[in-house]
C-alpha cells in the first residue's frame, strides 16, 4: 500500500503532530436584556414561545476588540505561556469594528504577541471562530508554530423587531492551541461540512442581517450540524454514548436541544454548554463559549463533541478529550458561569442606547 503524501479529502482532519488546547478563556459582558422586554415593545407583551430568557448586551465602551482581549487574557492566564511564543492571533466574528483594519492586530498588540505573529480576521458567520480553530490546529500540527490563538467573539446584530432581536447577543471565547503533551484537552480530530446555502446574510454596508426564516432550520442548521457530526463519529467509530458532553451551536434554546436529540445526545450531556437561554446567541462565540463552560466542569478523560454552525453554510465538528492538566489550569482565572452570574438587567430603552440603535442625525 502506498502512503499518500496528503490526506484524501473525505477523511477527518488530523494533524501530523498531535495538538490540543493549552489555554481557554471566556468573556460575557455584564448587561442583560430579557426577551420579554423585547416582546413588551414589539408584540404587546405576548409571552408565548420566547426563544430564550435573556441575552447579554455589551456596554457602551465594549466591542469585539475589547471583548476578545478579555477572553484572550483569560486564555493566557490558563496557558501560562510567554505571549511572544504565539505565532498566530486569529479572531472570527460577524461584528469586527472595522471593515478594513484587523481586529486581531489590536488583540495581538494588547496581549503582547506582536510582531512575530500571524494576525487576521475570519469571517464565516457563526462558525468564523471554529474555522480559526481548525487553522490553528493546522499551524501547530504542522510544526510551523508552537502556539496559535483562535477567538470567536461577537456583538451580534439583530434588526429591531426582527425575530433575531430576542437572541442576538454579545460574548465569546479564546483558545490557545499547542502541542498535545502540554494540553488541558487534546483535539483528536475535526471535520468540516460546507455547502453554498444562503440561509442568513448581511451585505457590505448593511447594518442588520437578513435571513430565510424557516429556511435557516432544516436545510441549514440541522443538515450541516448533523452531517458534520455524523461523519466525525462514524469515522471515529463513536456514538453519542462515547462522549460525556456535547456542545452545539445555539441560536436559540430549541435548535441545539433538537439537534442533540437527533444525534443521540441526552439533555444532561448538553446541559453545561447550553448557555443560550441566559446569554443569548453570541454568533461566532456561541459554540466556543459553550465549550468553555463545559471545560469548566469536565473531568480528565471526558470526551467532548463540539459542533459549530455558520450560515452560508457550514459546520465544524471537533472530537476533544480532556487531560489531567485541566483541573489545575481552569482555576487560574474567571469561569464562564462567573461572567453569567455578573448580571445587570437593562430595559429596552437602555439597550437601544447602548447598541447605537437611535439615529441622532
Amino acid at each position, binding site marked *: 500500500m502506498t502512503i499518500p503524501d496528503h490526506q484524501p479529502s473525505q477523511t477527518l482532519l488530523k494533524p501530523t503532530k498531535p495538538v490540543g488546547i493549552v489555554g481557554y478563556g471566556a468573556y460575557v459582558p455584564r448587561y442583560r436584556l430579557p426577551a420579554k422586554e423585547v416582546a413588551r415593545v414589539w408584540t404587546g407583551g*405576548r409571552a408565548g414561545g420566547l426563544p430564550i430568557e435573556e441575552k447579554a448586551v455589551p456596554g457602551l465602551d465594549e466591542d469585539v476588540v475589547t471583548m476578545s482581549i478579555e477572553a484572550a487574557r483569560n486564555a493566557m492566564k490558563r496557558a501560562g505561556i510567554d505571549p511572544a511564543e504565539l505565532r498566530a492571533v486569529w479572531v472570527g466574528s460577524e461584528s469586527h469594528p472595522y471593515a478594513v483594519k484587523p481586529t486581531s492586530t489590536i488583540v495581538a498588540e494588547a496581549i503582547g504577541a506582536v510582531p512575530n505573529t500571524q494576525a487576521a480576521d475570519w469571517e464565516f458567520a457563526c462558525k468564523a471562530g471554529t474555522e480559526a480553530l481548525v487553522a490553528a490546529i493546522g499551524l501547530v500540527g504542522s510544526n510551523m508554530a508552537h502556539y496559535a490563538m483562535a477567538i470567536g467573539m461577537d456583538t451580534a446584530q439583530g434588526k429591531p423587531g426582527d425575530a433575531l432581536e430576542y437572541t442576538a447577543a454579545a460574548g465569546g471565547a479564546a483558545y490557545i492551541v499547542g502541542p498535545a503533551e502540554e494540553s488541558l484537552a487534546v483535539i483528536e480530530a475535526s471535520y468540516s461540512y460546507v455547502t453554498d446555502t444562503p440561509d442568513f446574510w448581511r451585505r457590505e454596508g448593511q447594518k442588520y442581517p437578513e435571513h430565510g426564516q*424557516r429556511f435557516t432550520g432544516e436545510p441549514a442548521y440541522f443538515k450541516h450540524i448533523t452531517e458534520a457530526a455524523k461523519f466525525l463519529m462514524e469515522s471515529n467509530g463513536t456514538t453519542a454514548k462515547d462522549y460525556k458532553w456535547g456542545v452545539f451551536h445555539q441560536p436559540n434554546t430549541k435548535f441545539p436541544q433538537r439537534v442533540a436529540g437527533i444525534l443521540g445526545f441526552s439533555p444532561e450531556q448538553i446541559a453545561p454548554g447550553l448557555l443560550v437561554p441566559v446569554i443569548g446567541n453570541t454568533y461566532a462565540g456561541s459554540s466556543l463559549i459553550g465549550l468553555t463552560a463545559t471545560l469548566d466542569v469536565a473531568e480528565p478523560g471526558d470526551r467532548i463533541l463540539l459542533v459549530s454552525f455558520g450560515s452560508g453554510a457550514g459546520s465544524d465538528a471537533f472530537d476533544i478529550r480532556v487531560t489531567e492538566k485541566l483541573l489545575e489550569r481552569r482555576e487560574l482565572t474567571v469561569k464562564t458561569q462567573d461572567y453569567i452570574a455578573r448580571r445587570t438587567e437593562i430595559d429596552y430603552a437602555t439597550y437601544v442606547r447602548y447598541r447605537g440603535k437611535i439615529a441622532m442625525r
Partner: protein
Amino acid sequence: MIMTDIIIAGIGQTPVGEHWDISLRELGFKAIEAAIADSGGLRPQALFVGNMLAPNLSRQAHLGALLADFAGLTGVEAATVEAAGASGGAALRQGYLAVKSGFVDVALVVGVEKFTDAIGSGVEAALATTFDSDFEAVQGMTLAAQAAMLMRRYMREFDVPADGLSGFALTAHANGASNKNAMFQKAIKLETYQKAEMISEPINMFDIAPNADGAAALVLTRRGLLPIGFSHPLVRIAGSASASDRLALHDRRDPLTFHASRITVEKALEQAGISFEQVSLFEYHDAYSIYAALSLEAAGFARRGQGWKLAQDGAIALTGKIPCATLGGLKARGNPGGATGVYQAVEAATQLRGQAGANQIAGARYALIQSLGGPASTAISHVLERAE
C-alpha cells in the same frame, strides 16, 4: 357503460410541505411520474399545468413547455392555466374539456406550487396579485386580512361565538393525522384552537391554511381508451362547472354569499344527475375556515349563516352526514396554491377507489370537489363518481 365517460385513470402526488431542496420542475415531475405509472403507462397528448405564482415566486413562467420537456413529453400540447387559488381546478377542467371534446385522447393535468422559493413579505406580495390590484391590493390588503373582515361580518350577523368556527380546523387536523402526504399529521384539541395566536383578528393560526409546496397530477382519458387490464376501480368525472364573480369583494351585493360557488355546484350536480343529498363527501376549499362555512352554505348543505354548525355538531366528520376535508383539507394537508385543486381530485379519486385507508368513507359513490380563487371570485366544481 358509456365509452365516452371521462375516467381519472391515473393519480399522483408529492407530500405537501416545505420542500426547500426540491425545485418547481422536480416537484411537478414527481407527481407526473406517479400519475402516469398509476394509469398503467398511458401516453399523454396534452399537458395542462395549474399554477398560481411561479412567475413571481420562482421567476419561472412557461410551465407547460418546462414540465413537458422535463417529464420527457417534449412535443405535446402544453400550457399553464391560472385562476389564483382555483388554478388546479381550472387545469382539471381544461383537461376534462379537451378529452371530452375528442380533440385529445389522453390529457395530463398537473398542479404545482413552489412557495419556498420566496419568504415572508415576498410571498404576501405575490399572493396579493390575485386581488383586484387597483382597488384592493393597493389598499395594503392581504388575503388573510380580507378573510378576517369576512369572518368578522359573518360572526356578527349570525351570532357566532368566538370559537364557533373551530370545528373546521379540528376536523381537518383529525383527518390529516392519517394522511401520509399531509403537511400536518396531528389532531388538535379545542383548547389548542382557543389558545392559538391571532393572525388577523378574528382569524387565528388554525383558521388559515398553510402555504406549502406540492404537486399533484391526474391522467384523464375516455373509458374506451383505457389500457387492457386497467386494474383500478373506475372513477369518472360526472360533472364539471366553472364560474366567476366580481373580483373585488366590495363590489358584491352580498359578500357573505359565495355566488360563483353556488352556480357551479348546481351545474355540476345537475350534470351528474344527483341532488346534494347524494354527495358522499365534499372536498371544499378551506383556505380559511370562513371559506369552508360559506362553501357549505353555497352548496346547499346548510342555510345561510348556519354552515359553521355542521362543523360544530360533527356533520362534516368522516362518519357525519356530509364528510369534508376527508384527508385533511387545505388546513391540514396544506394549501399548495395552484396544486390544491388537483390534490382535491386525487384525494376524492382515492376515496371513490376505496383506497383511503383509515379515512375511507364507507360506500363513497359521489364526491364533490370545489376549487376557489380568492373568496370564490372564481369557483370550479367537479362531481366525481365511482363508475360501474
